[in-house]
């Protein structure tokens, strides 16, 4: 099975091509540059380098968010269009789950995070389930840093924090959690598209037409409108 994995959900842009038991190629940048301009050329180049033609692909796996609304939409739009028009499977994977993967052998729980502004985080809790499989334990959410740390404290487990936005919050996390908190190193913070592709290989395909990003929150105008309706 030949898989193309696409992640444009945050600043890190990642593309990977996998073939059965092999990661054929991976392209990762962590730059504040426009995904809309760079992602299709990156896909074009990586497929060319790995000798895979679009028509030979069997599956597209995309990071569906949370993250930058615009960023997520670019990847999801490309993934939906490619999968639909090539008549192949589409799989969506949480962007937090992809980021969490570098904690999969960590003895404790893993906390991937993206800053969501106004002291909020996009985050979730990941770790080994009783069945020994590394997976999501507490669902992805948008939450205030303080409330999240209070909840995490109660796990009584070592917590590995990962994400390029850690510097914004690391001090507060250390203050609250002390030695319970472990921080990933500089090379751990980029979500790897090969992990995205690997996870997506085993998941059930989505309905392409109705597939949407995981924004984890409504558009601001929707929130205000619902309020005005007394809902």
């Amino acid at each position, binding site marked *: 099975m030949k898989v193309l994995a696409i992640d444009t959900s945050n600043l890190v842009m990642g593309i990977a091509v996998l073939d059965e038991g092999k990661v054929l190629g991976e392209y990762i940048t962590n730059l504040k540059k426009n995904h809309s*301009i*760079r992602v*299709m050329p990156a896909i074009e180049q990586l497929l060319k380098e790995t000798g895979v033609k679009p028509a030979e692909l069997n599956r597209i796996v995309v990071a569906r968010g949370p993250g930058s609304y*615009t960023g997520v*939409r670019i990847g999801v739009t490309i993934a939906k*269009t*490619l999968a*639909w*028009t090539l008549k192949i499977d589409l799989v969506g994977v949480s962007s937090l789950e992809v980021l969490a993967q570098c904690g999969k052998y960590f003895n404790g729980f893993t906390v991937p995070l993206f800053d969501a502004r106004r002291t909020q985080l996009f985050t979730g809790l990941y770790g080994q389930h009783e069945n020994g499989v590394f997976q999501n334990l507490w669902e992805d959410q948008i939450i205030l840093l303080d409330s999240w740390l209070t909840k995490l404290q109660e796990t009584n487990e070592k917590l590995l924090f990962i994400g390029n936005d850690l510097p914004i919050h690391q001090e507060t996390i250390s203050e609250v959690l002390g030695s319970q908190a472990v921080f990933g190193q500089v090379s751990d913070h980029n979500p790897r598209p090969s992990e995205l592709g690997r996870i997506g290989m085993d998941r059930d395909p989505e309905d392409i037409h109705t597939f*949407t990003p995981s924004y984890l929150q409504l558009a601001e105008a929707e929130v205000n409108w619902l309020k005005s309706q007394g809902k």
Partner: protein
Amino acid sequence: MIKDEIILAIETSCDETAVAIVKNGTELLANVVASQIESHKRFGGVVPEVASRHHVEQITIVIEEALNKAELEPADLTAVAVTEGPGLVGALLIGVNAAKAFAFAHGLPLVPVHHIAGHIYANRLVKEMTFPLLSLIVSGGHTELVLMEEHGSFKVIGETRDDAAGEAYDKVARTLNMPYPGGPHIDKLAQEGEATIDLPRAWLEPESLDFSFSGLKSAVINTVHNATQRGEVIKPEDLAASFQASVVDVLVEKTYRAANRFDVKQVLLAGGVAANKGLREKLVVRFKETDFDLVIPPLHLCTDNAAMIAAAGSVAYQKGTRADMALNGVPGLDLEAQ
């Protein structure tokens, strides 16, 4: 035998997700438009973030429907055209990236199109263009007079200095407590009223072909305000008729002057406000018994659609215009740089 040129076009610059397929530049094979207007009505205007979300939900459905209607496969296509700009950046990005992915998947050439060029070229689906021609473009975001000496050449000879005509309509409609979008409501109301209220017409400098509608908009708001303070009742029908008369007078007269000054053969109406009955009627009257060939496209080609992008894309394709996979949505794209 010469192979037919078949272009699939995608347009997502504002609140319509649209895909069309056009054969040899003029023959419409499919024209699918998924409008979001019902969703934006509750906000009283288009919300960019909401528009972008809807585009992602609709994009593959609309492409599929267009191909099904035309009974074509991607392999039958010659090229993919897409609106590069201007428009809402987040909305443009969906169309641009879908177009790139689609073109890449099938090894098709990609042709970027200017949204306003598209509006003008909607006319080519109705009647062949004869040059030089003048086009009056009126929409929610644009009020422009564009001179074309030949295919693919655009010169803006007049434009609005403040609000677009459509914007003025929406704002006045809000003053009259009418739902969004205001244009059609005012147009309808105006048909039932008399233009009895004196409202200003912004002619600007004698030679100018530019427009200005913000003064008119303020005059309407003041008229309503003053009447309310004096306890008088203004018939909304009359106010709508007066406002419409003021807008249409200036639009039609400046178009007529420009047509004479540049001695054009054809005069084209384009853009969403071209659906306005008052404007269409007045244009027809003004250009009757002149040598100018006035072309007004049917309503479904005036509002945003992808057929117009395909029509403009066909000409661009023939001229060799191509984009690579780095194409981006450009919210402030310049028409004359095309």
